[in-house]
């Protein structure tokens, strides 16, 4: 067996191998991960907008964006020269100059919301250098309860527009205007609810500044306790999206998609992303209720289960075992769904069972 010829180039003085089609950014990330970026998202076509990832390639007159430059045999690439770091600092200062509050952003806003803040620390950018007018105007008039459109923090990396189009296929938002007046908008500048938006939240989770933010999670911004994340699987449908449940103490304060989730790679839908508050909603039943003379009254579990069993038994007796059909709730955990089908198959001896997520 012959293996394909190995591709090699010189990266910061070290000979490294690369895969066909690999970009210099991806290569540099495998070797130290020190090249910064703000417009990059693995799942999206590289845009080459922020220019923070520029590297020097021998023979090129100017630094090139590593995210849009494919590795080629024999290239001599430098990623950390004094000049490159100077340009990166200047770029960072420019970005922070139009978004000075970007350095302190609540992580509840979204998965990627700390990216600019982290770079501001790395390049000591506080917004003082290159100060001037700020671009972006927050859409406080958009009343939707899920996505905060806090464009004061927007840095025009267009990750939101790209994820909406390339990953979600909704094309609900767009780049309006030109130059410094560029803005993220819907058609006719309307609220998201009037657009093609499906409130999947992907724009929120890719935003590197928290300009697009999870409104539901932000309600718990002031809740006490350390923020923790627990990996889980979305309980709603059969896709099995991986997600992190964010908690402070015993309280769920948000959900963020798992970018390494094999089924979803960072995507969720409106339910998985935003419909989790029922878990701790005051209306949620905490004890069984049974009907007495038409009125629901609290009962013990034994009493309630006996009543249910009697009802099922009577229905099966009167109408046959196939008269019973069970639909498991999409909100119930997987273990419950399993138990329901077990119940239907063993107790009622039929296959009349389904899950509401299929309906």
């Amino acid at each position, binding site marked *: 067996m012959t293996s394909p010829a190995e591709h090699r180039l010189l990266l910061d003085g070290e000979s490294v191998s690369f895969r066909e089609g690999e970009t210099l950014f991806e290569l540099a990330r495998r070797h130290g991960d020190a090249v910064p970026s703000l417009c990059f998202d693995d799942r999206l076509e590289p845009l080459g907008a922020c220019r923070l990832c520029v590297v020097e390639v021998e023979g090129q007159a100017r630094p090139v*964006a590593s995210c849009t430059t494919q590795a080629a045999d024999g290239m001599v690439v430098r990623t950390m020269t004094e000049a490159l770091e100077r340009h990166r600092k200047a770029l960072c200062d420019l970005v922070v*100059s139009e978004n000075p509050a970007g350095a302190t952003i609540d992580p509840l806003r979204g998965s990627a919301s700390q990216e600019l803040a982290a770079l501001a620390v790395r390049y000591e950018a506080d917004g003082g250098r290159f100060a001037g007018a700020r671009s972006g105007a927050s859409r406080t008039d958009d009343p939707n309860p899920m996505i905060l459109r806090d464009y004061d923090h927007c840095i025009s990396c267009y990750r939101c527009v790209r994820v909406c189009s390339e990953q979600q296929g909704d094309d609900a938002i*767009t780049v309006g205007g*030109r130059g410094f007046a560029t803005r993220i908008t819907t058609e006719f500048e309307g609220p998201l609810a009037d657009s093609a938006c499906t409130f999947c939240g992907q724009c929120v989770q890719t935003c590197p500044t928290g300009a697009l933010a999870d409104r539901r999670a932000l309600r718990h911004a002031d809740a006490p306790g350390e923020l923790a994340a627990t990996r889980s699987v979305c309980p709603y449908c059969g896709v099995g999206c991986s997600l992190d449940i964010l908690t402070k103490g015993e309280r769920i304060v948000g959900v963020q998609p798992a970018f390494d989730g094999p089924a979803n790679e960072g995507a969720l839908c409106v339910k998985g992303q935003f419909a989790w508050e029922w878990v701790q909603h005051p209306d949620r039943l905490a004890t069984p209720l049974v009907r007495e003379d038409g009125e629901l009254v609290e009962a013990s579990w034994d009493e309630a289960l006996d009543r249910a069993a009697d009802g099922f038994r009577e229905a099966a007796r009167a109408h046959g075992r196939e008269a019973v059909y069970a639909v498991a709730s999409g909100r119930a955990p997987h273990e419950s769904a399993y138990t329901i089908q077990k119940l239907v198959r063993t107790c009622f001896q039929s296959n009349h069972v389904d899950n509401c997520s299929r309906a």
Partner: protein
Amino acid sequence: MGPSDSDLIDRWRGAPAPLLGLLHAFHDRDGHLSDEALRAVAEGLRVPLADLYGTVSFYHHFSRKSGGRDAPRVCDGPVCKQRGSDVLLAELEGATPMPCAGRCDEPIPVLRGGQVLVGTPGEGLRAAPTPLPPPNPAEGEECCFAHVREEGRSTLAGYGGAYRALARARELGPEALLEELDASGLAGRGGAGFPTARKWRAVREAPGGPKTVVCNADEGEPGCFKDRVLMDHDPHAVLEGMAVAAAATGATRGFVYLRYEYPHTQTVLERAIDEARDELDDFEVCVRRGAGAYICGEETSLLNSLEGAHPFPRNRPPFPVTHGFEQTPTVVNNVETLASVPPIVERGADWYAGLGLGEQRGTKIISLSGDVRRPGNYEVPLGFPLHQLLFDWAGGPEDGRELQAVTMAGLSGGFLGPDDFAATLDEPCLRSRGSFLGAGGVMVFDDRRDMVDVARQAMAFFADESCGKCFPCRIGTQRLTERLAGTAGPTAPDAWRKEVHAIGETMAQVSACGLGIAAPLITESLLRLFPERVDEALARR
């Protein structure tokens, strides 16, 4: 009653590059682009409505307000500012400013609906034909302008009745044709200066098709108005150049991407295409009108615009020669480049190369405007002394005035001062002086002009025209404009200079396209030529 929505959509749906054409059809019918029109277009062409809305909002001239298309737009480019465009703006009801509209050799252009008028403050507006280039003051031979002044030249009959260069190109065959062109030394006259034969050969050898020839007629660089005179007075030369490019590369379709500000030119070109059907044979040429965006003169931005996509420049590689219009191999050439081709094919590479001076080959049209006695388009041999053009050909400044600066490459090349007037008009010489020839726009400023303010206007233009894609240009042009205007930034001269240099250096080094790379030449050349003026301006703050 105008045509119905579905009439318009049916007319354009199957056409090549339909979006701009369909949008103009609605814009012209309704006088603006209504919400309903955008909905109809999105549905008709099956494009996302939000995308369409964003794209429409990118352009200057698509009006979303009722009656907006026909409201007057007054050029406030650098030369028109000198002539009092601010006064004219105030005189005309409902008028708004527009960036340089490419008529700097005339009174101030005013665009109103489908018509361009010219005007001078206090004297109203009038229609005026595109001025011909002034008579060539030297013995030197011209290439593009050799016949442009002939009566009736814009008709096929006036052009000689047939495309003789095209016939000869077909006779030669692609290989001999490309060798001839290569030997002529012709290089892109739109500013980039890429050797034309090499570009054509790359398209010829690129796999895939159908191949396309695009004529870049988006002459948006302030102070440039050469392509308009070529298209208006010698359109067949441009079309024949495109057809020769098609013959050399195997292209079967062609587009002229025409800037919005030249409505009359569209009529001229379309008439010429009609006349030349037999000559063009199976090479299909369409004119597509832009909608006002400087960046669309950048070739990949132009291609996106033509395809109906958001007009951000594309990342390169891949280059248009392999992945151009609709990802197929595409030649994109400037009007002047294409118009140079027929004479080269007819008269030979040696003739054309011999027109240049010294080691330079060929000619270049310079659009000269501003504070000189005889502004206009001059075709000069490459390597021609700038001083001779300014003072001998164009008559120098008015009596009692002195020239203090000229721009190069329109605005993109920054300023040159009197010490630079000894330069010759060619890239090696101008680049050695930190500038470049580019598309050949030269605007002249005499000692009355406030150069810091001229620089501010120039940077404000770049900021307004920055597409918004890459950070250094989007934010950098804004920050430099603020520093030139004094609305932000340090006022202490040392701190001011340090910031302006730092922003400019990063822009020039890491911007994604030529706009952001070139824009800091304005501030750098201002600081080099007029350090005292800068200090005075800072002292007033």
